[in-house]
């Protein structure tokens, strides 16, 4: 059984929480006590229908203001898949949460209000989905009930959207458009009786049939060493195992490997998962690897295949960053850069561009990058990092920036 991670995005009031509530409700993922609580809460608000948005608007502040502040994680499953939804708020000031929520997603679900069509946030979300290389985007034109389920209205919005999409999309990304009504359950898990003119998939069908082929398993092999296992017991006196989660590609017993950045080479002797020995392991698996000879490897080193001629090795490079902190990013400042599990100091030498993700334009001559802004920077690290270009191998191409004094995660970067 696989897991499909979805990020939802939308503007204030376009009914995202209701959509998620509807998905949960129609896949029987809500227990009776929760529905009862929902009924009484809806009644207290003077509503004569189930307010499904109350299922996800969890925090006190959110209930008071009727908005979603932070990334919430929601779970449901079908016989086919387990789904994890990162529900992220659409307010401009919370864009950092959207990037955060979308960082693990394979599908980005973007909501558009049928009455309003494209708004600034729609363009912003499409750009972010592309920046993060999310392979599938589903645009839900919601609240079709409020435009009398008119086909012409949907076509008009789809037409405008596809113009926008053509500017943001990248090769390998698929984008689909669905007319829906979350409030009345049209085209969520059941065909829309109110929109017989729409012959495409329901939202759930789109999710159930999306194949995110094992592209990761075929990417270049990368194994960051997280922890060195040295039991030093009688039974395992000389045992030295390298524990970690394969970030991309495939490793097999007998493969010749190279350690980065030291360049030492060896051969994989065993691949272990607890008491089991494996012949091979692929991206995403947490394993322990042992090598045929004793070499010096420590946490933060990366293991790659020796057959690769060009190994990733960066010290001076450029990257796109999304700034996540109230204190702006300014050139000349030093941060801690964490690539996977490897942490080193990094100096931002220059901010070369600031992107306006809602207009797909950029400006140069940038003094600083503020909270929620996306830009292009040049930086230099103290130690070499074994990162790939994000567009070529996303699972080994991102990093975070940490403020040395507050210890906060202040930025996320994507290697160019």
């Amino acid at each position, binding site marked *: *059984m*696989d*897991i499909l991670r979805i990020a939802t995005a939308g503007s204030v009031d376009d009914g995202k929480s209701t959509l998620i509530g509807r998905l949960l409700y129609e896949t*029987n993922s809500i*227990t*009776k*006590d*929760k529905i009862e609580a929902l009924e009484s*809460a809806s009644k207290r608000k003077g509503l004569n229908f189930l307010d499904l948005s109350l299922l*996800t608007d*969890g*925090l006190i*502040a959110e*209930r008071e203001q009727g908005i979603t*502040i*932070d990334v*919430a*994680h929601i*779970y449901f*499953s*079908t*016989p086919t898949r*387990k789904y994890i939804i990162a529900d992220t708020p659409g307010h401009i000031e919370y864009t*950092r949460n959207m*990037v*955060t929520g979308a*960082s*693990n997603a394979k599908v980005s679900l973007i909501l558009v209000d049928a009455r309003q069509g494209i708004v600034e946030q729609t363009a912003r979300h499409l750009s972010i989905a592309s920046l993060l290389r999310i392979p599938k985007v589903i645009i839900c034109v919601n609240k079709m009930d409020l435009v009398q389920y008119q086909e012409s209205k949907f076509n008009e919005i789809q037409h405008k959207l596809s113009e926008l999409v053509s500017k943001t999309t990248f090769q390998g990304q698929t984008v689909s458009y669905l007319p829906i009504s979350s409030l009345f359950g049209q085209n969520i898990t059941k065909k829309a009786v109110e929109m017989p003119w729409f012959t495409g998939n329901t939202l759930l069908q789109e999710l159930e049939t999306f194949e995110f082929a094992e592209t990761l398993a075929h990417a270049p092999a990368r194994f960051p060493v*997280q*922890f060195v*296992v*040295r*039991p030093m017991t009688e*039974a*395992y006196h000389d*045992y030295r*195992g390298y*524990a*970690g*989660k394969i970030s991309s590609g495939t490793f097999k017993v007998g493969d010749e490997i190279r350690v980065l950045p030291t360049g030492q080479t060896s051969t994989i002797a065993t691949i272990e*998962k*607890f008491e089991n020995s494996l012949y091979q392991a692929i991206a*995403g698996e*947490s394993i*322990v690897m042992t090598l045929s000879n004793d070499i010096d490897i420590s*946490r933060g080193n990366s293991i790659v295949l020796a057959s690769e001629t060009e190994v990733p090795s960066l010290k001076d490079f450029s990257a796109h960053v999304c700034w*996540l902190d109230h204190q702006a990013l300014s050139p000349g400042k030093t941060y*801690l850069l*964490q690539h*996977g*599990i490897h942490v080193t100091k990094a100096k931002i030498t220059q901010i070369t561009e600031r992107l306006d993700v809602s207009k797909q334009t950029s400006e140069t001559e940038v003094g600083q990058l503020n909270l929620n802004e996306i830009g292009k920077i040049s930086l230099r690290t103290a130690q070499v990092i074994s990162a790939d270009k994000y567009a070529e191998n996303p*699972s080994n191409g*991102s*990093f*975070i920036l*940490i403020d040395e004094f507050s*210890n*906060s*995660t202040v930025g*996320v970067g994507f290697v160019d």
Partner: protein
Amino acid sequence: MSAIHDKIGQFPRELEDESIYIMREVAAQFDRPALLFSGGKDSITLVRLAQKAFFPGKIPFPLVHIDTGHNFPETIEFRDWLAKETGAELIVRYVQDSIDQGKAKEESGKYASRNVLQTVTLLDAIEEFKFDACIGGARRDEEKARAKERIFSVRDDFGQWDAKRQRPELFDMLNGRISVGENVRVFPISNWTELDVWNYIKEEKMEIPSIYFAHQRQVIQRDGMLWADSEHLNKEVDEIPFETTVRFRTVGDMTCTAAVSSTAVDIDVIIEEILSAEISERGARIDDKRSEAAMEKRKQQGYF
């Protein structure tokens, strides 16, 4: 029934890989981590994951149990067995000691429990051992405030959670850097659901305390739920204990965990019961029923 069987599915192994990765990050990033062990199925799952993460080495941190004194005896027995079985160090600290020291005050009335009190003992234990990271078995599917929790959740000196000051967590990168006095709560099974935990216990053939299975027990009926009778429960005169067949779906204190009527004696039947159950897991937690925001408030005060 067939719709239910369709849903059972398998345990998604990806979840185990993710949790083991988190366990290893804890061991690597912190000087004095600890695993908060309650004796419930979630913390038993954590112990299993820790065992796997460092095999053939031992679990490199202690199991810490905050004993409220209201635990089920079966839980305590199981705890001691598990510590011995895995060779992990076990540290126990008692809520009774906090009460005796005047740091915590016993609640009164028929709903009196020590659930809130254990936060005091936990914070003292963190200070005593200078723990910088405490691993807990909370899951995001349990409750709305928990749905917003990070995997590495930074707490201040007083163990408080501030929803608006949370660090963003991007991709699988975990930032455990903290200042003196701060500590981190770590939730390796954040993305598991109750069903995932049960499927895992089944696939791994893990031992769990006997009270999860159907057994005969003296209970009272209160607020439409079955409460285990014990010396710790403040009963009203008309609450007369009777014996029936029950099991526990979630295991907390005897004073704040309700039993469910059940004849499930093996794990397959338990999984079937969960799938067809009409009440959510935390619906049997009396501590959550205090108010709609009960969990969020407790978390702000240092509860995990």
